[in-house]
């Protein structure tokens, strides 16, 4: 049997714009060459190919849009694919597969409050959820956003954060682990922001994404506030290679991060020794 279809074949997309977010992180805006929207949901990821160099998974950082076919990825320079992406000039092409994986169940959150806890690059996928909510602001209740970064130099989306901080329909708090001379905000790990917020644990859902070490502490704080486990959502990072639940690389105990994740309800992973 010869088949013309293979899930391994990427489609092409073109780099529309590029914006440096800090020394290592750049925001890329791509347009699908098919002219169709990406049709992703907040929290999903895509596989990005730079032919000759390789393929790597990235969370989509923009909210889903039906009005145009562009989407955004924020990428930190760490390996060969990310380096190659940084070297692209506007007009260059990439290959994409996906979107893949689980997502934040937005319908479930309608009418409810939301607490975002973003550590470092964790803000990249959170941004997709947050901006979806801001675009449908009247469907959701109180929104709180906590953003933690190692130091002021590593902050990303600073302009956008400054802008949404001005809005009176959400609360934004930021912190850095180690300040520099110019930093006037909160200093300390992200959990030091928890005493400063007021949320209703009865109606609040949490989305937390950050480095592996962060989750345990954030979840502890949430529990202290009285938020039940089934309303805490995390997105876990693994090295998805196939994105189809086959290659095994992203396995967390018996789950495939590419199919069952990357977005998990905490109750589904609380008992797994390899999750956090």
């Amino acid at each position, binding site marked *: 049997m010869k088949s013309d279809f*293979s899930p391994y074949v990427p489609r092409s997309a073109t780099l529309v714009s590029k914006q440096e977010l800090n020394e290592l992180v750049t925001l890329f805006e791509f347009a699908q060459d098919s002219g169709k929207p990406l049709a992703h949901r907040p929290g999903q990821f895509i596989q990005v190919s730079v*032919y*000759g160099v390789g393929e790597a998974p990235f969370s989509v950082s923009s909210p889903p849009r039906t009005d145009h076919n562009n989407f955004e990825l924020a990428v930190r320079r760490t390996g060969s694919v990310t380096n190659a992406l940084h070297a692209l000039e506007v007009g260059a092409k990439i290959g994409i597969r996906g979107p893949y994986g689980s997502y934040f169940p937005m319908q479930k959150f309608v009418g409810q409050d939301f607490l975002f806890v973003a550590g470092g690059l964790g803000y990249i996928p959170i941004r997709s959820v947050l901006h979806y909510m801001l675009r449908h602001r009247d469907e959701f209740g109180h929104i709180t956003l906590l953003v933690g970064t190692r130091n002021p130099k590593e902050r990303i989306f600073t302009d956008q954060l400054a802008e949404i901080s001005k809005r009176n329909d959400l609360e934004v708090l930021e912190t850095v682990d180690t300040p520099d001379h110019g930093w006037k905000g909160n200093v300390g790990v992200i959990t030091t922001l928890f005493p400063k917020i007021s949320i209703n644990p009865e109606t609040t859902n949490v989305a937390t994404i950050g480095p592996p070490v962060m989750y345990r502490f954030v979840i502890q704080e949430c529990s202290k506030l009285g938020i039940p486990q089934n309303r805490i959502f995390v997105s876990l990072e693994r090295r998805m290679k196939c994105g189809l639940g086959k290659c095994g690389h992203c396995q967390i105990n*018996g789950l495939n991060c590419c*199919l069952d994740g990357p977005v998990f309800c905490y109750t589904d992973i609380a008992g797994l020794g390899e999750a956090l």
Partner: protein
Amino acid sequence: MIAYTIYLPQIKGLLKKWALELNIYVPTMVEKGFFEFRPWNDQVEIAWDYDLCYTTLKKFILPPRENIIFFDMKKYSASPVTEAPKQLLFGVHPYDIKAINQLDQLMEMDSPDVNYQARRDNTIIFGLEPVHVAETAFWSSMNASKVDLGYDLYWTRISPGAFFVQVGSARGEEMLKVEGPVEKSNFTQKEAARRAHLKILAEAEKQTLKFDWSRTPELVNKFFNNRTFWREKAKTCLSCGSCNLVCPTCYCFDIQEEADDLLQKGRRYRQWDGCMLRGFAEIAGGHNFRDNAWERYRHRYMRKGKYIFDKLGELGCIGCGRCVKACTAGIANPRKVYNEIWEAIKNEI
């Protein structure tokens, strides 16, 4: 059940006919005590009485390296590659058929793997009732001594010169009749095949799990947090992946690519990988979710003993004993590991 009786002298003629249509692989002795499936030709002596073929048969359906796409770096386009030569695996033991059945299901699940399926569709499997049991095998206690699907024909040697051939598919039956009508088996021949099965079963019972296989998931799950046990077991683990690579039910792979010398086109391919290898669970930036050999070691037993069970309702280990042989450190014996866990906690569960 439809079954025919085929006599040894008939087989060469059949093989010659089949060989016109497809590549045939048969078990043969490659070195004293070592058997492998090799391409058949007139000169090859089929090892009807082999105990275990040294490497796994998955290589015929999931090759060690396989192109999955070709890409064009200038046009930025890509096209699928599916290669699927017509082939016959003649002489596959039931535990190995079970392993392929399992791969069939896993590759079909969620998002069907087109490369695997194309090869599988073009692969004909003739099962063979074993007459010897490998020293390291324990398939009888892994529910793998008999399969009721996954073969086109199933051959049982009922006398030095005759085989009882059970039909598993129309395609298999057609192949059997390619040279004209063949003898339908009678009751005596069927009974002889049943006895042959019981005989080998008795031999296989020498090495077994000390408990019913279906309790394995519960056992390993209970032992997941026993770090001392896993650490101790994995102390001499070389992280060489041999146990993964010879395993007929392991199917993990890595994806890589290479551009051509003019840097205009290229190919992306997949190749066998293993969860025992150090970098398997590493993410960009270097964090490794199973950094220690014992964590990787544990993962393998969890996967064989529980995770696959959770998906399919059967264990991911079919008891062929290949890993037991392949592990130079002598620590990759699922039967031993599971039995030890059983001994340690049988009174608690």
